[in-house]
């Protein structure tokens, strides 16, 4: 199970993963979701390095965050010292306080404790984590490359998963935004996490309740974590309705923003009993695809953004009829809306 990049290596990583606990992020928009805590951690690392951009160290180094659902019990004063205002009112953590250490952090990312020891190798760091916090989720920041990566590891419903979230220096515009969206497709939608969250009964193509909202929440957190200088806001009210996602950058200029409208095409409606789930008509799916484009266009006008994206997540049983997407594409071209279509897989086997 190659969860951690090979270059750092770790003999005990499989053990660590085998014992990782499921993170309770089952609710839509949970205050304690993995994605949201990552956003917090990214800001925390940036602030500690006194940097608004990415901290790039001169030598390979690792910061390992262990997310604790019970910080008060896990926090041991002989091994850790408290950090952050939630515990000590101390928010003056510096770079040297973090590098090659293990940081214990609360499930909302605001309170924590840093290990007194620095670890000479990633191996010893992992061994320490395994001994102390074998049941918790681990977030690892690698900072030996210009583009640093966060690796999450854990188990959902008994199945191991991994998520890689890349954080770049580029703000969320142009091709960078598209790259982040593509990454979301491959690392969340069509990965263990997405499959687990989006399907009620995957083999029958029955989606979970409120699929669009579930995708919106996680994409929102994903984009927010990707770049701290951009702000992602969801459900933005305007006179044309409520925009799903609004990405704004550190600038007063209206052209530095984008609107994203999400729509899901389904094979079946959600039903508690998957055998009773009714099929979704082609007309309903066609209407959804077209409305994604027209709404994105309308919200762009109302909110004064320069860019409009319509993201369609296709949860229909493959091979899917391309007509719906083609028709939406024609309207998108006409209205200058970027249309993205993602085929959502329903099983892990198909992504291997």
């Amino acid at each position, binding site marked *: 199970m190659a969860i951690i990049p090979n270059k750092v290596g770790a003999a005990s990583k499989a053990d660590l993963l085998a014992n990782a606990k499921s993170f309770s992020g089952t609710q*839509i*928009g949970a*205050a304690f979701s993995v994605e949201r805590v990552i956003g917090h951690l990214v800001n925390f690392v940036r602030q500690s390095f006194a940097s608004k951009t990415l901290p790039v160290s001169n030598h390979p180094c690792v910061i390992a965050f262990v997310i604790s659902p*019970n910080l*008060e019990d896990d926090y041991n004063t002989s091994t850790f010292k408290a950090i952050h205002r939630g515990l000590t009112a101390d928010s003056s953590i510096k770079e040297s306080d973090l590098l090659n250490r293990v940081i214990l952090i609360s499930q909302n990312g*605001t309170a924590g404790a840093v290990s007194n020891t620095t670890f000479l190798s990633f191996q010893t760091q992992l061994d320490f984590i395994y001994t102390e916090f074998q049941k918790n989720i681990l977030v690892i920041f690698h900072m030996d490359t210009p583009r640093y990566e966060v690796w999450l590891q854990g188990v959902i419903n008994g199945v191991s998963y991994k998520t890689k979230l890349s954080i770049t220096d580029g703000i969320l515009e142009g091709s960078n935004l598209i790259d982040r969206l593509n990454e979301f497709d491959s690392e969340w939608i069509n990965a263990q996490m997405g499959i687990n969250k989006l399907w009620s009964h995957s083999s029958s193509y029955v989606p979970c309740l409120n699929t669009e909202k579930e995708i919106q929440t996680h994409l929102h*957190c994903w984009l927010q974590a990707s770049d701290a200088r951009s702000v992602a806001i969801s*459900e933005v009210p305007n006179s044309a309705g409520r925009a799903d996602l609004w990405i704004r950058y550190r600038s007063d200029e209206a052209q530095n923003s984008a609107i994203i409208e999400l729509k899901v095409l389904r094979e079946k409606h959600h039903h508690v009993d998957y055998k009773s789930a009714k099929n979704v008509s082609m007309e309903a799916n066609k209407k959804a695809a077209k409305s994604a484009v027209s709404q994105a266009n309308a919200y762009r006008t109302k909110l004064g953004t320069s860019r409009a994206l319509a993201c369609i997540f296709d949860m229909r049983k493959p091979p899917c009829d391309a007509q719906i997407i083609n028709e939406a594409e024609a309207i998108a071209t006409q209205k200058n809306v970027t249309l993205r279509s993602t085929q959502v897989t329903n099983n892990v086997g198909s992504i291997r």
Partner: protein
Amino acid sequence: MINQIEHVRRVWILLILRATRLCGFATISAKTFHRLALFSNSLAPTNHVEAETAKVLKTDYGPYFPDYQVELDRLVGLQLIDVVDLKWQSEDGRFISKYRISNAGMSFLDLAIQKLNLIAQSERAVSETISAFAEYQIDKEKETATVDANYGIDTLQIGELVDYGEWIDAHNYATEAAEYMAGAWQNRQSLKLSPEDSEYEVVTYERSQVFQLELEPDDLYELPSSHLNRAAVYLYAQYIQSKLSGLIRSYIQSAPQ
């Protein structure tokens, strides 16, 4: 036999204590609990959830929910909440203690959140609020609760009930203030009023205070990933910390409709 309202109340109490545990400080005093109960209830409409209880007793030691205290102690009996540091306080003639949700309480609630959509909705609202206020040391700040837009109303004396939604004509200033601030944030406006605008002349001293609270763009971008309602709660928590949310209330009251 307990009635349905008490069931809901118990779940709400457990949600507050679950959230504090996930925020990193599991054990909280009764005083802190009642303050968090106030904020979680008064800001619940911001997250499109009805407040569990929309009235609170004003006491000399801060906001107090008598019904919550009764249920809190019953939940201890059910072993869903643990009592820590139980002490007798002779001057008040009462026991004081700290509370934390037990592992059994956590398991029960996690299951309930997964199975029941209504509880999941309340969890979101309560968790967002507690998570926002957890960044501040609300238990150490004596005035934290008294500057709440509802609780801090000057005309209400100690021993009186503060009603922020129980009766039809009751006003929830906390939610209004939070949503007002979020609106300003969304539109990248500062919260200061236009000095040229004569319509706002009614706000005098308060206005000059509000002037000082212009939000810097950098502050705004430090907000955690934001649903607009989440931003509202976070902004309100910031203002509580600045002890100025009452002034926002004054502004809302004075501004032309």
